[in-house]
């Protein structure tokens, strides 16, 4: 290569991608990076996660050391102030001059602040860099109300951040709807309503004219329609403008409304100068997303490396979660093309809006808008990107539950289909990686970089990898872990049929190695579901996750919480008093849970047995809040007190809770019983829920709250007490036998071949002829119930295991508390950064 010295101005996401790609293509050329920001390139796309607790350092895409290792000079914290194309030099504000053979401008863009009187006050901020973020946090600390001006993608992200910072949050938008660039009117409206229901106030058609001193707040915003809004801080997010000053000053061609004009090779009007990323104008457009910027960087590198690949524009489809609302926009969302037709599906109750824009002949997808439900996004994007012919009735793609909806599986995609747009990885590239011997998801990710950018393609990538595995005759690995070549369902069968009663026996007969933190708790749970032995028996003790091992939930500082069972939420005053006394004597933080019982937090492990001794003496039992087992059966007041109740919901809830307490399952189980169809106990969000009617109990199954809520399905109607219990026995045992580890009933049903109908056949019609066995198995569990805390406190050897030290009676001196609202809370050392991504699996 002839190029000797490449200088890159701007060390943002695109500039960085360029540098990495160039170094990979050319080991020898000189590379100098000059950046205005003090820190090397970081992940701007995930900036908002800092508000949710991620340390800013975790956003870093590289480091000075890494650049040094790659032989890249970097000069940061000093912007380029002048460019001299004739001399081939750039000079920084700090007075340093650098010569180049080729220059790359990757200066990005800056937030546009509309010219408003008062818009330069210090309470008026913008949101683009890590430094901006610090400024927003600092200003928010003394604020009660915050306003974001601009209801686009970034504005809404920023609104989310303000909300996370605890401010009353408003979004002010000039246009009639939110996210006007990506969404059509219907989509904007649904999004607006959803966001308002989350407590963010949306004001559309508002043109801000003036910002003055406020009365109750620091600022008052005045709008063109004579209304006003008081706030303490304002973040402007009214669009971005390309950072093209250097190009303008040095005579390079720029667009009428800004942006450095580039050709297919990302070359500017000077053939030694390239522009890439958000500062570049291609075909009259600025591409305000990171993936197109990466494509430009690659095109520029290919040009320097002598094997040019053209940049021909890029897909601007986006899928995101804004304030918890799923939003997706694909292609021509507004249906601007000639003859375009639209299909619209909207469900105002569920706040879902979907629109398909198709060509005149209904054969190709031109665009789509999804609000409130993005499940179809991956499939639709593939139709769009690969111009796959649409099914005869395209509406089937967005209307839920349409028979025979052609779910576009990985197999249907052509090799050219883009799977990961951040790293431009096609299905063909994944298949090639398989050919080269990379044979599982982790290896494919490491090799192709797929799914290591925004992460939006993770589900699609997995299905492509699974499809590759199965079409190559390689087994899709469903083994529980490296120690057992079996699924949980198979292990359950081996334990039951082989009459195996310990982990060691199972390992000796069917496994290898020592076991691990995946298979041990899973097998412990299977053994308990089958034989119901005391979970802390010597043979089982070391298998249990820490919560099961200490029969309490471990908290972030190593202390534990205590949740006694309060069946159906019914509790006597005397018992309430005992809970209060115990909490007071041990100085435990006390809280009513969402499950109609009381949680006492902050007990040290060595205090647990003594606390439980007192609770047991007062008639309490363990609540299994720590176990993958039945948790709570919530109840409403029911017919005993409520003027609408038709059956005794409290009585039934107590009966059910006492029947299934202690039942170990693949995941936790929750239930509720409501006394009439007003459903005050929320039974339809439970694994199994019961609602009273004039003609008996109705049973609903496989509901879920939590991360992915699912409404329970009506399973059986008009049951008497005995029929109800019989069907629940069968249902629960069938789930316990066949579900995967950590699979709630909702996900289990969704993966069950044959679905709800099949489940009804097995449980109600006994199509497999196993119901008698299921009932018998359940009865054995019911008959062998023991309160494991009671068993434990009666066994001095077990009690000793709860001491923090094996050789001292002291407690852990690192456990310390401070006080808040009259109770204790863990003392958080000032320097400690919150852990963001990991979830404690036990609990």
């Amino acid at each position: 290569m002839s190029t000797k010295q490449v200088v890159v101005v701007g060390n943002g996401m695109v500039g960085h991608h360029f540098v990495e790609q160039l170094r990979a293509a050319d080991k020898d050329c000189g590379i100098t990076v000059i950046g205005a920001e003090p820190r090397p390139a970081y992940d701007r796309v995930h900036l908002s996660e800092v508000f949710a607790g991620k340390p800013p350092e975790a956003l870093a895409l590289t480091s000075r050391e890494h650049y040094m290792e790659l032989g890249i000079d970097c000069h940061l914290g000093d912007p380029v102030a002048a460019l001299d194309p004739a001399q081939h030099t750039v000079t920084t504000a700090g007075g340093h001059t650098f010569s180049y053979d080729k220059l790359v401008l990757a200066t990005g863009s800056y937030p546009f602040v509309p010219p408003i009187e008062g818009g330069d006050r210090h309470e008026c901020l913008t949101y683009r860099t890590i430094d901006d973020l610090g400024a927003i946090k600092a200003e928010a600390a003394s604020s009660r109300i915050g306003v974001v001006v601009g209801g686009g993608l970034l504005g809404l992200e920023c609104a989310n951040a303000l909300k996370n910072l605890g401010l009353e949050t408003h979004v002010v938008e000039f246009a009639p709807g939110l996210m006007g660039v990506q969404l059509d009117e219907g989509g904007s409206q649904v999004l607006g309503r959803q966001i308002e229901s989350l407590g963010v106030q949306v004001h559309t058609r508002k043109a801000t004219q003036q910002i003055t001193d406020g009365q109750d707040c620091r600022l008052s915003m005045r709008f063109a329609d004579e209304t006003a809004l008081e706030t303490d801080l304002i973040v402007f997010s009214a669009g971005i403008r390309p950072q093209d000053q250097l190009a303008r000053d040095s005579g390079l061609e720029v667009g009428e409304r800004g942006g450095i004009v580039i050709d297919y090779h990302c070359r500017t009007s000077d053939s030694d100068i390239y522009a890439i990323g958000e500062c570049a104008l291609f075909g009259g457009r600025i591409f305000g997303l990171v993936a197109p910027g990466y494509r430009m960087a690659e095109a520029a590198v290919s040009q320097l490396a002598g094997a040019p690949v053209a940049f021909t524009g890029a897909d601007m489809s986006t899928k995101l979660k804004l304030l918890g609302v799923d939003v997706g926009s694909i292609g021509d969302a507004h249906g601007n093309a000639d003859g375009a037709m639209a299909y619209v599906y909207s469900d105002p109750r569920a706040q879902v809006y979907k629109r398909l824009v198709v060509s005149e002949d209904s054969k190709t997808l031109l665009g789509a808008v999804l609000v409130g439900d993005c499940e179809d996004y991956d499939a639709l994007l593939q139709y769009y990107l690969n111009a796959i012919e649409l099914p005869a009735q395209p509406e089937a793609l967005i209307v839920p539950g349409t028979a025979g909806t052609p779910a576009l599986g990985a197999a249907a995609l052509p090799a050219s289909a883009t799977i990961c747009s951040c790293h431009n990885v096609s299905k063909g590239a994944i298949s090639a990686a398989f050919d080269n011997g990379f044979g599982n998801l982790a290896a494919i990710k490491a090799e192709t970089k797929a799914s290591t950018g925004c992460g939006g393609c993770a589900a699609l990538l997995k299905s492509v990898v699974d499809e590759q595995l199965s079409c190559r005759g390689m087994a899709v690995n469903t083994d529980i872990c490296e120690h057992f070549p079996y699924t949980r369902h198979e292990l359950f069968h081996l334990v039951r049929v082989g009459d195996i009663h310990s982990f060691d026996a199972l390992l000796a007969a069917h496994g290898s190695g020592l076991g691990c933190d995946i298979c041990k708790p899973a097998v412990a749970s299977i053994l308990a579901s089958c034989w119901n032995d005391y979970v802390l028996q010597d043979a089982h003790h070391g298998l249990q996750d820490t919560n099961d091992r200490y029969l309490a939930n471990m908290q972030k500082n190593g202390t534990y919480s205590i949740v006694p069972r309060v069946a159906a939420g019914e509790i006597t005053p005397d018992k309430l008093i005992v809970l209060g006394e115990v909490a007071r004597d041990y100085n435990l933080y006390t809280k009513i849970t969402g499950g109609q019982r009381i949680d006492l937090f902050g007990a040290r492990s060595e205090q647990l047995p003594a606390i439980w001794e007192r609770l047991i003496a007062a008639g309490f039992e363990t609540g299994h809040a720590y176990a993958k087992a039945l948790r709570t059966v919530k109840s409403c007041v029911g017919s005993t007190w409520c003027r609408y109740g038709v059956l005794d919901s409290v009585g039934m809830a107590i009966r059910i809770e006492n029947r299934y307490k202690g039942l170990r399952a693949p995941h936790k189980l929750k239930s509720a019983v409501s006394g009439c169809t007003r459903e005050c106990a929320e039974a339809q969000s439970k694994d199994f829920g019961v609602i009273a009617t004039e003609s008996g109990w109705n049973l609903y199954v496989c509901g879920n709250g939590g991360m992915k809520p699912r409404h329970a399905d009506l399973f059986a109607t008009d049951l008497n007490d005995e029929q109800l219990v019989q069907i629940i026995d069968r249902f629960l045992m069938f789930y316990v036998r066949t579900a995967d580890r950590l699979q709630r009933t909702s996900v289990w049903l969704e993966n069950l071949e044959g679905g709800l109908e099949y489940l009804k056949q097995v449980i109600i019609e006994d199509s497999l002829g196993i119901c008698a066995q299921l009932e018998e198995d359940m009865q054995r569990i019911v008959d062998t119930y023991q309160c494991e805390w009671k068993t434990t406190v009666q066994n001095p050897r077990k009690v000793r295991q709860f001491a923090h030290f094996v050789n001292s009676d002291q407690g852990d001196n690192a456990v310390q508390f401070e006080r808040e609202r009259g109770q204790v809370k863990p003392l958080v050392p000032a320097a400690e950064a919150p852990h963001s991504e990991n979830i404690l699996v036990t609990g």
Partner: protein
Amino acid sequence: MGNWTTVCAVDDIPPNSGRCALVGTHQVAVFRVRRTNKDEFYALDNHDPFSGANVLSRGIVGTVDDKLVVASPVYKQHFCLQTGACLEEDIDLTTWAVRVTGHAVQLAP
């Protein structure tokens, strides 16, 4: 390595699990691993660097890719019992020497 401290008896640590011992002001997680009917002992810092809690002795022991490990009970990272190295991140825990004399489990820095 001369300063052996006796911390407990072998039977104070249930097989394939750990207990925490206090040595001076140090909290040490001592593990008893039972393989082919023989006991092996390992010891590491009890402090979990990810959560900041003193709890590693309460983790599940096992093998991952043939390495003997304990899984942190809080966020589930794995630490090699032999070297103290974390498998997921670039962090090493201090390991302690362990020996059994008669029935006594002894530690040395």
